[in-house]
Structures are given as structure tokens and as C-alpha cells.
């Protein structure tokens, strides 16, 4: 029984060794971003003796970082807001009526079955469609992210709404509340925990997405952060320090958010995936 109470030092050692595997690529990213080519020539691994912050200035200049950061932030924020407002509403209508009405039940399976559709099957037609609708911009990107999240989000939301007692809404109806009023004032606030989960998952997948912006966005002023790294890759080939400064800048916003909201993010992702 004693082994269950004290620290298990062997496991502790293995866990620490494991973190080295996780942290090594990140250590390399930070140190390379702060070195210059001469320091690299001496040793690739060493901690930099003098810090070359100018790598970041050049990377910001070269990739137009602030513009692409603004693009990524705008698409991510508006996708999250739009997703929370619209997907929760659809899921509410479905979950409260799917037992009684075939229409809503059919709708549920219609949406959820899209979870199995791999993006490449719609990739080619969607490019033609968005360009004919003049949607090859950030607005189009936001709308598509919101629509493509629907399958999974409806699935997660419906599962959660079923656990909210219907009696609350019936009481509201008796008091004269409309269906809309009931949704916005009673159900939507009650869904806060699952909305946090959906919001976190949407934020992560939208911010890090590469393929959708790659096929949709053509105007360089609308590039998102991952797309910029891809486009500039050829020019970085001669200067790794600059490239890594640029990678670090693109990764940093999410890392900072993660440092502050770590517990929520882990819980949110866990709940979303298990549903």
C-alpha cells in the first residue's frame, strides 16, 4: 500500500525524460530564432550568447506579420462568435423536436453524417463555387469554417442540450416567453460549459487551418499566418534564423493563450472529443 501514497520516482524520471522530447523542437525554435548565422556555425544546439532580436524585426517586415496576424485573428474570432451563436441555435431546435418530428430527426442525421466527408471530396468544387460568388476572401473563409464545423458541433451540442430539463422551458412558456426568448434568455446561458468547449475547439482548428485558406484565398493581403509561412518558405531557405523567427511569431499567439487558459483548453478539448 505504501507505493500508492509516496511519489513514484521511476515514473517521475520517465515523465521528465518524455518532456525533453516535447520541448526539444521548441527549444531549437526559440534559440535558432535568436541567433545569427555565425553563432549557428559554431554550434546549432548552444544557448545563444548574444540575442539577435533583429531577426524578428526582419521577419515581421518580410512576411507582413501584422497584416496576416490581423487576418488570422479576425477569421478566428468571427468564426468562433458565429459558430457559437448559430450552431447552438440549430442544435437546440433539433434536440427539442427530434423525438416528435421526423424533419428534425432527419436534419440531425443529415448534418452529423458530414463528419465522415473528407475535405478533399468538396475541395475542387468549392474553389469554383467561392470564386463565382466572389467569396475568396476572409468573409468566405469565416463562413466556410462555420459551415464545416456544423457536423461535429451539432453532435456535441445536441448531446448536451438533452441533459437540460425541458421543465425549465415549459415554465417559461407558461409565463408567456416566446421560443426565441426562451432560447436566448434560458437555454443559451445554460449552455455556457459546452459553448466553451465548442469555442476552444473552433478557435484551435480555425487558427491553425492551412488547407482551406490555401485553396480559397488568392489575394496576398488576405493571407492567414500558416499560409504566409508556406508562401515565404522559398525565400527563407537561405536564412534559417529569419524563418524560425517567423515560425515563432506565428506560433506565439496560441502559446500565450494556452499559458493562460491551459486548464480550460485541456478540459474543453477532452469533453468535445469524448462526446
Amino acid at each position, binding site marked *: 500500500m505504501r507505493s500508492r501514497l509516496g511519489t513514484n520516482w521511476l515514473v517521475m524520471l520517465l515523465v521528465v525524460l518524455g518532456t525533453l522530447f516535447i520541448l526539444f523542437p521548441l527549444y531549437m525554435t526559440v534559440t535558432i530564432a535568436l541567433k545569427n548565422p555565425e553563432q549557428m556555425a559554431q554550434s546549432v*544546439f548552444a544557448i545563444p550568447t548574444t540575442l539577435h532580436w533583429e531577426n524578428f524585426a526582419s521577419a515581421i517586415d518580410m512576411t507582413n506579420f501584422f497584416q496576416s496576424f490581423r487576418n488570422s485573428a479576425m477569421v478566428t474570432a468571427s468564426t468562433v462568435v458565429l459558430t457559437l451563436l448559430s*450552431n447552438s441555435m440549430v442544435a437546440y431546435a433539433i434536440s*427539442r423536436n427530434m423525438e416528435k418530428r421526423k424533419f428534425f430527426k432527419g436534419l440531425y442525421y443529415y448534418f452529423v453524417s458530414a463528419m*465522415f466527408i473528407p475535405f*478533399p471530396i468538396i475541395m475542387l468544387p468549392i474553389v469554383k463555387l467561392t470564386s463565382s460568388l466572389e467569396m475568396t476572401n476572409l468573409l468566405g473563409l469565416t463562413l*466556410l469554417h462555420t459551415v464545416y464545423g456544423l457536423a461535429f458541433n451539432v453532435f456535441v451540442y445536441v448531446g448536451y442540450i438533452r441533459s437540460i430539463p425541458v421543465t425549465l422551458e415549459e415554465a417559461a412558456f407558461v409565463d408567456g416567453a416566446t421560443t426565441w426568448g426562451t*432560447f436566448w434568455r434560458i437555454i443559451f446561458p445554460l449552455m455556457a460549459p459546452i459553448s466553451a468547449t465548442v469555442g476552444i475547439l473552433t478557435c*484551435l482548428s480555425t487558427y491553425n487551418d492551412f488547407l482551406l485558406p490555401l485553396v480559397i484565398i488568392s489575394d496576398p493581403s488576405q493571407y492567414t499566418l500558416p499560409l504566409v509561412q508556406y508562401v515565404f518558405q522559398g525565400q527563407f531557405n537561405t536564412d534559417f534564423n529569419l524563418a524560425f523567427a517567423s515560425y515563432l511569431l506565428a506560433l506565439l499567439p*496560441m502559446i500565450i493563450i494556452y499559458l493562460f487558459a491551459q486548464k480550460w483548453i485541456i478540459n474543453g478539448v477532452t469533453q468535445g472529443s469524448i462526446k
Partner: protein
Amino acid sequence: MNKRMAPYYWMTVPAVVLFFVFMTLPAIQGIYYSFTNYNGFGKQYDFVGFKNYFNLFRDDNVGNAYWFTFKFAIVVTILTNILSLLIALGLNAKIKFRNFFRGIYFLPNILSVLIVGYIFNYLFSNVFPIWGQNLGINALSTNILGSESLAWIGIVIVAVWQSVALNTILYLAGLQTISPTLYEASSIDGAGKWREFWSITFPLIAPFFTINMVLAMKNSLMVFDQIVALTNGGPGRATQSISHLIYTGGFEGGEYAYQSANSVIYFIVIAVISILQIRFLQRREMDL
């Protein structure tokens, strides 16, 4: 009553319209184009029936892409699940700074796959070879991404490095659902650690095993970002995945209709594998 019901219908209308226009319609269009010889631009094309589909089965590039993708997905799924289960057991044991370590191990999951790929690309080409030379290991002293037979292993390493994060956290959630009293009872009965794992831990986290297998398999069958960042499908076409082939052939190779047929097959393959996996693993859950 109608006054109550009407808003429910209105709540679904925008989503149904958008979902139909941007999801169902393109999917139908993709199937439609797969029976033509359309090249992706212009307006001229003819119907060719199942010709694209017959040609797919004789195409070496398609065969290669499916072979690479399956080999990659199976290896990644197995490695990811073994490693993440081990890490989850470690993070669930009595250790210090448990939450700190959980935070570190989950970190790779929040990073952009493309950028992680670029970082590893540099490590493979400039850092690991130095170790290989210093240690005198031949296999490590050159860039494995440049080798036709080894490049896929490089992509496996990057994919596993990143996907272990999510699966670990899910296994951890599973381990926390197990009541400690079960372990106390088994230790009174004199069960060893090994027996305890196979008789208690593993059966009780069976649903989490199912989720993790399905998630890891589905994600790795769709591999794209890592390919772009690490090898761009090369050397030759040694590491070209199915989605990468559809992308390059469809947009750059003038094979719009042909790759549409490929994506229809790809969709059927993914759907069938996911359904079989869920059925098989859930039946296993019951038996345990």
C-alpha cells in the same frame, strides 16, 4: 402551438441553406464531374462514364498514394496509441507537478501542423545528421527526408509527436473514471501490476481506446499539412498522400475530373474504415 413551433423551423433555415450550398452541393458536383473529362477551367467537357474510375485502378500514382497513406495511417495509429497510453499511465501515477506535466504534454496539440512540419524539416536536414555523424550511426547521418525508403518514417515521427498529445489527454480522462477502490480490492487479492493493467485498467478504458483508435486513424488518413511541410510528396512520389495527390493533380495537373473520381473513392474508403472500426471496437468493448 404553431406560434411555438415556427421559430424552431426558422432557427434551422440559415444553417440548412448554407450547409446545402457549401457542403452537399459541392459533394454532388464532385461526383458529377467524376463522370466527365473536365479539366477545371473553361466550359467544355464531355461525359465519359466510368472511364475515370477504371483508369484510377491502373494508375501507379494512385496506387502509390493509397499504399503510402495506409502504411502511414496504420503505423501512426498504433504508435500513437501505445505511446499515449503509456504517457497517460505515467501522468496518472503519483508524481510531483502532475498538472504542470499534463500542460507540457498537451502543448503540441495546439500548434500549427504546417509550422511544426517546417521546424522538424530543419531538424531532419540540419540537426539530426550532426548527431548521427558524432555517434557514428550511418542511417542518421544524412537527411532521412531525402531518402525514398526512409522519408515516410520522418513523417511518421512528426505526426506521432503531435498526435500523442490529444490521445494522452483522452486516455487520462478515461483513467480518471476508474474508481481507486477497484485497485485496492485487486491488491488485497494479490494481483501484480501487469495483471492489474490487463484485468482492470484496460477493460475499463475500452471506450476511450475506441475513440482514440478512430480519431488517430481518421486524422492520419487525411494527412496533408505534414506532407507539404516535410517532403511535398517526394522524393519522387514516395510520400505522396491521397489528399496531396488530389490537391496537386486537381489544381495543378489539369486532372480535375479524374481527381474528383479519386476523391469519391477516397470518401468511400474513409467512411467504410470508420464504420468498420467503430463496429469492431465497440463489439470488443462488450466482450470485455
